[in-house]
């Protein structure tokens, strides 16, 4: 992994058109500003992991008990 040291308000460029700016540094936390084309997906890694975990859980579902579901929905 490439590791770079940056100060507040400094930035790095990735490729032609992605810029990551260090906007704030405080104890244990860094705030990043990201300039990137709209067709690049950006999200915190833990959100992707959350979705994976949730999908695994959903794949292990028992099936819907349709009798119970009918009671709930058919008023």
């Amino acid at each position, binding site marked *: 992994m490439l590791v770079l040291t940056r100060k507040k308000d400094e930035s790095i460029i990735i490729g032609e058109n992605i810029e990551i700016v260090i906007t704030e540094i405080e104890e244990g936390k860094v705030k990043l500003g990201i300039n990137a084309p*709209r*067709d*690049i*997906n*950006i*999200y*915190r890694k833990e*959100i*992707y992991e*959350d*979705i*994976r*975990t*949730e*999908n*695994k*859980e*959903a*794949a292990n*579902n*028992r*099936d*819907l*008990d*349709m009798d*119970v*579901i*009918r*009671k*709930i*929905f*058919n*008023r």
Partner: protein
Amino acid sequence: MNKWKEGVRVELNTKYFGKIEIEEERIITFPDGVPGFEDSKEFVIIENPEDDIPFNWLQSIDNPNLAFVIINPFVFKSDYDFEIPDLVVKKLKIVEQKDISVYTIVVVPEDIDKMTANLSGPVIINVNKRLGKQIILDDKRYHTKHLILEELKSKGQVK
């Protein structure tokens, strides 16, 4: 990829419905799979025949044991709103809004009152091109476990 001719019906082993027959044209390709099941790239939506019950199933074609219960999120969260990233619009070849169906994946625990829908990861389907993708929303309003029945009860839609 087109193993079957148009209009041809194919047999499919399913998790909840045993062996069924579907029209080949109903198969939806997920070019990226879904998170956690990246290798599963073809699914079919098995619709619930009962109109007033909003649950359907997303069944994997290659893996009979992989099926998700899904729900149209707008049924219980009418103000659900998000933007589909340009990259996804391109990947799914979406041209206009009416190409799109949105579903969310449901977890059904033992206590059915506690079943939840994942609003952080809506499943977007281009119904015309039969292409799908689960997208990831980094939006504080939505999380992976929205209580479906609680939302419906608060609107008086269920008992």
